[in-house]
C-alpha cells in the first residue's frame, strides 16, 4: 500500500555492502557498550532484534529522503581529529583571553570562504569544524561557498589561510 518511491539517489548495490556492515558493527558495539549484560541470552537476542529493526528503519528512511552520504573518509580521520582538537584548545584560550580582557578587544568580521569538498559529508565536517573552533561560526553553507562569522581578525585570517580546508580535503580523498 505504501510503496516507497524509487529515489534517484537510492543506495546502489555497490554502496550497500560496506555501509550496511559499518552500520551493523557500530550499532552492535554501542549496544554491547550500553548494555553491559553479556550472559543473558534473552537480552542479547532482543539486542539483535533491535539492531535489525533500527537497520531496517534507517534504510527505509534513507530510501525515502535521498541518502547518498558518500562515506569516503580515509584513514586520515585519525590524524585530523587530534589536529582539530589542538586547534580547538588553542582557540578556546584565545577567546577566553578576549572575554577576560577588560577592553573586550573584538573585531567581528563576515567572510566567505570556498568549500571545495566533493561530498556533503566533507562539507559538513569542514563547516562543523569551523563552528567547533571558538572564534569562528559557520553561518550559511550554500553551493560551494561558506559564510563565516569571525570574532577577531586573527580568527578570520585563520580560516582564510585554508589549512583546515586542505586537511579536510586530504581526508576526504584517501590518496
Amino acid at each position, binding site marked *: 500500500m505504501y510503496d516507497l518511491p524509487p529515489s534517484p539517489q537510492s543506495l546502489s548495490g555497490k554502496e550497500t555492502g560496506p555501509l550496511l556492515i559499518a552500520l551493523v558493527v557500530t550499532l552492535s558495539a*554501542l549496544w554491547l*557498550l*550500553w*548494555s*553491559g*549484560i*553479556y*550472559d543473558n541470552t534473552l537480552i542479547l537476542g532482543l539486542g539483535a532484534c533491535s539492531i535489525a529493526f533500527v537497520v531496517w528503519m534507517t534504510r527505509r528512511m534513507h530510501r525515502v529522503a535521498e541518502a547518498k552520504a558518500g562515506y569516503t573518509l580515509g584513514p586520515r580521520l585519525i590524524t585530523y581529529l587530534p589536529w582539530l582538537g589542538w586547534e*580547538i*584548545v588553542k582557540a*578556546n584560550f584565545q*577567546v*577566553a583571553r*578576549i*572575554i*577576560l580582557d577588560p577592553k*573586550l578587544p*573584538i*573585531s*567581528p*568580521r*563576515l*567572510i*566567505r570562504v570556498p568549500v571545495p569538498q566533493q561530498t556533503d559529508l566533507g562539507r559538513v565536517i569542514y*563547516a*562543523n*569544524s569551523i*563552528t*567547533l*573552533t*571558538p*572564534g*569562528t*561560526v*559557520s*553561518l*550559511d*553553507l550554500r553551493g560551494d561557498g561558506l*559564510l563565516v*562569522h569571525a*570574532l577577531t581578525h586573527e580568527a578570520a585570517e585563520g580560516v582564510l589561510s585554508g589549512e583546515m580546508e586542505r586537511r579536510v580535503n586530504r581526508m576526504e580523498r584517501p590518496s
Partner: protein
Amino acid sequence: MIDSLLHALVWILLVGGAAFCVIGAVGMLRLPDFYTRTHAATLPDTLGAGMILLGLMLQSGLNLPLLGEGASLRIGDGNTLVTLKLLTLLLFLLATGPASTHALVKAAYARGIRWNQASPQDDSSDSKHADPD
C-alpha cells in the same frame, strides 16, 4: 607517584573545564550582539564539557575485566563501561553541538538579526539579508 599525578591531572581537568564554562557564560553576558555571543557559547560546549568529561573518564579509568556482572559495576575502581559511555557522550556532544549552533545562527541570519556594532567589516560578496518577517 603515578596515582597522585593522575589525581592532580583529574583535578586540573575538572576545575579547568568548570572555569571554561563560567568564562563562556561571562562572555555571553559581556559580548555585544547575538553573533559574537555564539563564539562565547562555544567555550562551554567544547573545552568546558570536554575537559570535565575527560577528567571523569580518567577518574573511572579503563579496567578490562569487562565481561560479566555488568549491572553491578561501581564507580571509582576502574569502570570501563562508564568510561566508554562518557566517551560516546562526548562524541555526541561534539557532533551535535555545532549542528544546532549552525541551525540557530542560520535561522538568525535568515531572519535578519543585525550586528549591534556600527558596521562590522563585511568581506562577503553577498551581504543581503532576507527580509525579517
